[in-house]
């Protein structure tokens, strides 16, 4: 297929995905609403836990569809890049992950090793992106393997990422994600049951922040990360 045809095909996939995402938003929001309402009522511990799981599952699905609709608006909407404190964003993400950690009976570790105080990013998009990474990592967490949110300096950039102990992503899925986001394919190992949709959304968010996603394979999992430029705002003072 020529490049124009290929581009049209990718755009068509994008728009149908977004249409599906819009359609799914209302029923998913309703499921979440009903689970929250049920949770207000009295019930035994098992019922409460089931309702909580229902709520969190619907929130997870909602995050994916809202991520998709947001990704489609990246071109039109103003997602301003400003100096952002990466530690604050990471702390907020960790705080909002508490219900999932409680339900999974695990914790998310964090390791901050960059002296940099500010990066250039969009706070909302960065938070969404990291939340998705962490949420995914928590689904593969165990007592032995606790995922980790990390921040470290890499040259003139700050790398923010998540060490995930799940199986790797199928090469084909990663290739599709890279292709859809107009980046070069980079083969990595295989993660079953993954469409790569979350990664596609994350990739779009990264692109909107003039950055790109990276992945490091480990013997027992992967690390997904984003490299963000250091803000020079403080050095100008």
């Amino acid at each position, binding site marked *: 297929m020529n490049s124009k045809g290929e581009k049209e095909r990718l755009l068509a996939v994008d728009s149908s995905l977004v249409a599906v995402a819009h359609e799914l*938003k*209302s029923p998913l*929001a*309703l499921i979440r*609403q009903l689970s929250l*309402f049920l949770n207000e009522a009295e019930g035994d511990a098992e019922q409460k836990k089931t309702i909580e799981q229902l709520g969190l599952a619907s929130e997870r699905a909602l995050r994916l569809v809202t991520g998709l609709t*947001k990704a489609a608006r990246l071109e039109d909407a103003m997602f301003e890049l400003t100096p952002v404190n990466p530690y604050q964003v990471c702390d907020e993400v960790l705080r909002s992950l508490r219900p999932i950690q409680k339900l999974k009976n695990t914790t998310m570790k964090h390791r901050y090793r960059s002296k940099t105080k500010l990066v250039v990013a969009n706070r909302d998009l960065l938070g969404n992106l990291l939340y998705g990474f962490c949420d995914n990592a928590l689904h593969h967490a165990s007592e032995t393997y606790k995922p980790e949110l990390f921040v470290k300096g890499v040259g003139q950039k700050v790398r923010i990422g998540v060490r995930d102990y799940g199986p790797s992503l199928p090469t084909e899925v990663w290739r599709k994600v890279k292709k859809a986001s107009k980046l070069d394919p980079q083969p990595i190992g295989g993660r079953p049951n993954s469409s790569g949709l979350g990664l596609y959304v994350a990739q779009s968010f990264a692109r909107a922040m003039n950055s790109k996603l990276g992945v490091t394979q480990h013997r027992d999992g992967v690390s997904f990360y984003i490299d963000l430029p250091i803000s020079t705002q403080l050095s100008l003072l």
Partner: protein
Amino acid sequence: MSALIYVVEDDDLMVEHLSRVLKSYTVKTFSNGLDAIAAVDKKVPDLIILDIVLDGPSGFALLNELQSYTDTSNVPVIICSSMAEELGELVDNSVCAVLDKVTMTPDDIRAAAQEALR
């Protein structure tokens, strides 16, 4: 007597949910803007909870209609939409609150209604 709330929403299950959450009020529901306007003509409610994407005229059309008449221009309106994030500047000061169906909780719905009715 409890306050009268009109809920304009085309999703039956969401209508039922909102009615349950707001059970301490008198709630009347409408699946489209035309029926809601007809009802407003007969009796002006204390609050309207309005979805934006509706069968027929949109929630914005209904909002404009309400603002066109002196007896209805002061009726508090809460927008309740799954597209709240996308609405942005389309929502003006005439709206008391915007509830995002994706992130709101039953407590948020009750609090917004209580605040609007104050």
